[in-house]
């Protein structure tokens, strides 16, 4: 056991440095809270972290990788000839060819040489990739349960389904982003008692924003944010916009999504003749996004699958009314007609009906809704609460 004065060393592992926005947020939150954070994986971009974050990246280029692996093997040999022998044997056995040998060695060696106390896997799918190599590590394992990896990937990927069932019982602790996803993970053999639900958080300063509310009966400006992917349900949103247009409702709808616009959406916009109402913007930096959000009347989340969408929390904090489907853990953040609007998944008619309801609502009601949403964020989705959640989680996992 560590003495209290010593910091727990947590490897936040997603495979890439930097990782996605919310994992980078997590790194930030944890590193400010007395943990030592180790980052392993491929370095894609130069990043600046505070002094509690230590990077042990694996090079991407082949020549550098060879040098890196040889160097790390030597360090391991000097540290522990026994572990060196074991590691070398295991990597050789698990590698079909020399290229994979170097890739596997490049992955596991820095972790062996800088043993963390807890290896925290951010993407559940990772458990399938190197289970035998993970066994070389003498540390605790934590796995985050988020989105697609739990909710639908194993439905069509039978080998992933099998891997979850095989390795989940060996994991020391799970971090679930929502109650809903923790229930899904239990189906694959995750021990319910080892799952901690820790909601994500938003920056406190968003709570100070107070944009104007929509005036009853006026044109409504809607916005959605999130990558182009079927799970985001933009096609259902466009179906709803068609219904609104047919009913003579005045509106605009902006989608902020990175990448090429899918054919499906292009075809829908053309087919429905809603070119003038719809605008699709190819990505946007977060601060600009917050500015844009404040000019809109409502954030719409038409998804069919989510953990808890961070952009909804951000909008709630910033005082923009939200409408979400009841997918994933969304209902843990939004209560219908209390802190926002909730509609069933895969249901364009409901979206259209609720938008109309919103338009015809008095401003006071909308202000009340915004107040309640801010209160929800203050209670459930603050940095402080997330920090405390992880502190507890890691201490439990480590002390187990």
């Amino acid at each position, binding site marked *: 056991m560590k003495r209290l004065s010593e910091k727990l060393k947590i490897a936040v592992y997603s495979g890439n440095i930097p990782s996605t926005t919310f994992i980078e947020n997590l790194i930030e939150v944890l590193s400010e809270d007395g943990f030592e954070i180790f980052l392993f994986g491929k370095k894609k971009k130069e990043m600046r972290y505070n002094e509690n974050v230590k990077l042990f990246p694996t090079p991407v280029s082949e020549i550098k990788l060879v040098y890196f692996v040889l160097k790390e093997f030597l360090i391991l040999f000097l540290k522990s000839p026994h572990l060196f022998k074991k590691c070398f044997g295991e990597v050789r056995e698990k590698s079909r060819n020399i290229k994979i040998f170097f890739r596997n060695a490049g992955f596991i060696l820095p972790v062996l040489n800088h043993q963390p106390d807890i290896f925290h896997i951010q993407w559940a799918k990772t458990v399938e990739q190197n289970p035998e190599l993970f066994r070389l590590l003498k540390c605790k394992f934590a796995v985050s349960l988020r989105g697609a990896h739990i909710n639908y990937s194993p439905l069509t990927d039978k080998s992933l389904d099998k891997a979850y069932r095989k390795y989940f019982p060996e994991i020391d602790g799970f971090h679930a982003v929502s109650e809903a996803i923790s229930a899904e993970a239990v189906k694959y053999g995750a021990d319910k008692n080892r799952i901690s639900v820790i909601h994500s958080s938003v920056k406190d300063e968003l709570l100070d924003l107070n944009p104007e509310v929509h005036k009853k009966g006026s044109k409504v400006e809607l916005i959605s944010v999130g990558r182009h992917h*079927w799970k985001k349900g933009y096609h259902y949103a466009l179906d709803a916009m068609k219904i609104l247009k047919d009913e003579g409702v005045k509106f605009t709808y902006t989608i902020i999504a990175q990448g090429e616009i899918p054919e499906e959406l*292009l075809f829908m916009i*053309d087919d429905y003749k809603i070119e003038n109402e719809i605008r699709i913007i190819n990505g946007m930096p977060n601060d600009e996004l917050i500015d844009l959000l404040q000019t809109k009347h409502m954030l719409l989340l038409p998804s069919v699958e989510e953990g808890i969408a961070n952009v909804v929390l951000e909008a709630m904090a910033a005082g923009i009314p939200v409408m979400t489907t009841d997918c994933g853990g969304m209902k843990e953040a939004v209560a219908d007609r209390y802190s926002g609007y909730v509609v069933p998944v895969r249901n364009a008619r409901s979206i259209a009906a609720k938008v109309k309801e919103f338009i015809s609502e008095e401003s006071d009601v909308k202000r009340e809704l915004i107040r309640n949403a801010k209160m929800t964020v203050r209670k459930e989705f603050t940095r402080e609460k997330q920090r405390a959640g992880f502190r507890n989680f890691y201490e439990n996992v480590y002390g187990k």
Partner: protein
Amino acid sequence: MRIGMVLPEAPQYSETFFNYKIKCLKESGYDVTVFSGKRSKNKYFYKHIAAYPVYKNKKFRQSILFISVIIKTFVTSPYRSVKLAGKEIKDGSSFIGAVKILYMNAHIITHNLDWIHFGYATMSLNRENLAEVMNAKTGVSFRGYDINIYPLKNPGCYKKLWGKLDKVHSISDYLYSKALKLGLPGEIPYRKISPAVDTALFKFKSDPGSIKSPLRILTIGRLSWIKNLETAISAIKILKEGGTDVVYTIVGFGSEYERLKFAVYQSGLEENVIFSGKKDHKEITKIMNESDIYLQPSYQEGFCVSVLEAQASGLLCIVSDAGGLKENIIDGETGWIMPKRDPEAIAEKIREVMNLPEEKRKETAKRARIRVEKEFSLEDQKKKFSEFFKD
């Protein structure tokens, strides 16, 4: 008469439409050559010439081949080559661009043809001047994606083609009308030749128009957003919640399996929806025979042969009002048409059909079979194809 058909790939066995088209033309005395983008080892019953390859990662190999092909083409067809390159430059390409266009057409330009026919409108891109320099005529077929979707991503892509066309074939009036909106001049001669079905291969059910319990619904098609199977799955959910015992079989494969599988899982329909993957003709006739209703919920459709096959087999067909489907089914006569993308409407229509008197359903199935035999026969299609290049 010598016809060059330009296709992305030489038609495989399963692509009955093209195979049959080529066969018809040959039987009518035409000399048909298929020009395709890809080389293949298969044996064909027609002349088949593949384009010179484009290597993405082998620059050296590509340069050598490129130079030798260009030299060879200039030597064998000097007049045509110079003329094509000249026309392309006049149309605004750079010199390199023009030579590249010559390379991608080098397998065609050396042949003597009376017609160059593009199997899809997209096949005509960068080939618009080809027929003119070869003293041939230009024909094109509209088939669906090429008119419905490609121009959305590439506005104005057929502007050049419209000026060069001698004749247009479309599988539905719908696609033709859409092409007119894209700028196709109305004075260019147009023929609609719908897909046909060999009714001998699809046996009329012994109990046409019957409804069993559980209700057996079938869709055949790629797992793609175009087919709008998500809407159908939502409709099945509504039926189930309304107390109908239903099994929905989806035959086909495609890139959106995960999306659909999740829709089924999320809707609690794992017992009711079966993805049976790709099936061959024999298996399909068996599945047709064991189904009651054929559903085509498509968001867009050029015409849809599967709906013809289902009608030939004696199934009750319910289709969306997308694209060419309205020409495929006569609403209330040979099947039923409902608005696309509306699960409530699909569920409602299925209930309505279930509640029809047995006799009414049987009559509908019979009328559908008769219409398919009469209006979508292979004989008829053959006649129309042979006439297409005549006048």
